[in-house]
């Protein structure tokens, strides 16, 4: 109870209560996360299950348009898949890839940043050179390249099963640089402090100092980076899937759904492409707004 009231009166909570963008984006994200989590319950059909698709119901417009069917609220695509249900399942995949790649990027970036900042010298130089080179290339290009290499190594018949892992790897390997730079900076500051010297005198190993003592003190800004990173990761996944090198059509993410819809744009079937696009834009916009707010709210210089 006391912890609750303390959390309520904290700076962050105050800033949250006074920022309408923060509240709206949190609300939107909560709705989207819940929708993704409860997708099997909320969906009216399982778009992966062919036995639930009735070809007679294909290419139906949304329920409110002329010729719409109330069973398919947002209409159906050319394979009679319910657009609303596919969006729920697609959102789920997009978020899984997003969160997993943020976790991977964070793990790589934090470890390398901690190592570089603590060790200094050659190790630090090598890590930072790699980071510099990676940073001078657009993220989408690096992700495409990792993706292409993974596809070249895997046999073609495994591409569809492995797609989700390849995506997580490609996006995670692309985005670790920012974490590494930030963590390295704060580690170099923390390393000089007395508590680290005290730990050294007590005979704690370098590894122990890094993980037990410095790590908890450098994690603050990581939260902000992770939030902004989630928006980018979701966007990168959608772009890769749209380009046809991401999630396969049998397991569509939001990007794949937009790709499928794009192919039928000229037959006037706009709903298959527009609704997944709207969900994607709302998701990315909400994450970005929340990230912007968090960055400002946690930045002491802006108070």
């Amino acid at each position, binding site marked *: 109870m006391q912890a609750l009231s303390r959390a309520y009166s904290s700076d962050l909570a105050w800033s949250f209560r006074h920022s309408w963008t923060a509240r709206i984006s949190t609300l939107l994200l909560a709705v989207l996360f819940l929708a993704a989590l409860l997708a099997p319950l909320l969906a009216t059909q399982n778009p992966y299950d062919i036995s639930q698709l009735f070809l007679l119901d294909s290419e139906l417009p949304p329920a409110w348009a002329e010729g719409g069917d109330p069973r398919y609220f947002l209409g159906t695509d050319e394979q009679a898949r319910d657009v609303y249900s596919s969006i729920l399942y697609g959102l789920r995949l997009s978020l899984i890839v997003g969160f997993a790649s943020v976790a991977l990027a964070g793990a790589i970036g934090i470890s390398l940043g901690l190592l570089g900042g603590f060790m200094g010298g050659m190790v630090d130089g090598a890590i930072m050179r790699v980071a510099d*080179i990676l940073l*001078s*290339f*657009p993220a*989408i*290009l690096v992700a*495409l*390249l990792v*993706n*292409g*290499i993974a*596809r*070249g*190594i895997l046999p*073609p018949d495994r591409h569809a099963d492995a797609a989700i892992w390849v995506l997580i790897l490609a996006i995670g390997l692309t985005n670790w640089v920012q974490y590494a730079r930030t963590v390295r900076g704060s580690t170099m500051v923390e390393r000089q402090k007395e508590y680290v010297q005290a730990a050294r005198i007590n005979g704690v190993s370098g590894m122990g100092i890094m993980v037990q003592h410095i790590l908890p003190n450098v994690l603050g800004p990581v939260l902000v980076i992770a939030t902004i990173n989630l928006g980018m990761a979701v*966007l990168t996944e*959608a*772009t890769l899937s*749209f*380009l*046809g*090198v991401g999630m396969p059509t049998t397991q569509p993410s939001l990007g794949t759904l*937009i790709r499928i*819809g*794009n192919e039928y*744009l*000229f037959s*006037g079937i*706009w709903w298959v*492409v*527009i609704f997944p*696009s709207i969900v*994607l*834009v709302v998701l*990315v*916009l909400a994450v*970005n707004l929340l990230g912007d707010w968090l960055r400002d709210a946690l930045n002491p210089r802006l108070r």
Partner: protein
Amino acid sequence: MLGFLVRRVIQSVFVMLAVALIAFLMFRFMGDPVNSMVAENASTEERAAVRERLGLDQPLWLQYGRFVARAAQGDFGLSWRNARPVSTLLAERFPATAELVLVAAVLSLVLGIPLGILTALRPRSFPAQSLQLISLIGISLPTFVTGILLILVFSVWLGWLPSFGRGDVVDIGWWSTGFFTLAGLKALILPSIMLCLFQLTLIMRLVRAEMLEVLRTDYIKFARARGLSNRSIHFRHALKNTLIPVITIFGLQLGGLIAFAIVTETVFQWPGMGALFIQAVSFGDVPVMAAYLVLVSLIFVIINTTVDLLYAVLDPRLRVDGARGAH
């Protein structure tokens, strides 16, 4: 200044060698090059002969050296997919991408700078406020969604503009251009708008922020005290200092334009290098991927180095610091 220049160039060479190493490792370890060279039922001796002819029995560093030497001459071997020389494939498709990126880059500057100035000088006016809001949406909208919306509105519903291809092109030597035919120019409109939109919003927001910053400085106040006209203050004094960071960001973003041309080319079925690269990625066509990577990296490195040098030339403050090595 000279030391800075030399260091910058050495750094670029190292980046290119690193990129070439990645490309080389892709060649060497993704799939067996021998398999793509010999017939399916080749004997072990034939394979060994090919292996020797390709120099695959030599130490790795020697192979890498030869790879770099060949890459420097533009030789990346044959595409695994259609067995044509990779350099020819890229050369055929280079003009399409170059024209698209050029038009998008010019558009983003020509529109972005004036709009940025407008929003900075009249921040409370209605156009400025709405531009700020639109730019926020422009930054959050995925590029391919923008492209699809453009096609839906201008091609499907209104039927004004073509939604795929380059229209009619004219060949000038090996360069094919869409600049001299009406159909070619019309085909350029939607893809270049899609490609430049993100860039445009970025430049607009940057110019606005820089301009607001510069207008608060003392030398502007002094210029006002001297009784100079608003026009002279804004466009002769303030604008010069505003544009220096814009050059850096623009240079860096030019690389982004080339990368995002991949997406634009896919949406509009534009026959450029990016579309070729995407095909190579989905088929695991290593020679094309490697060549694209090296070529695009070379362009990036040249742009980045030029921007850094240009920066030193344009900003007198950096020239004084130059002896200590500007960043």
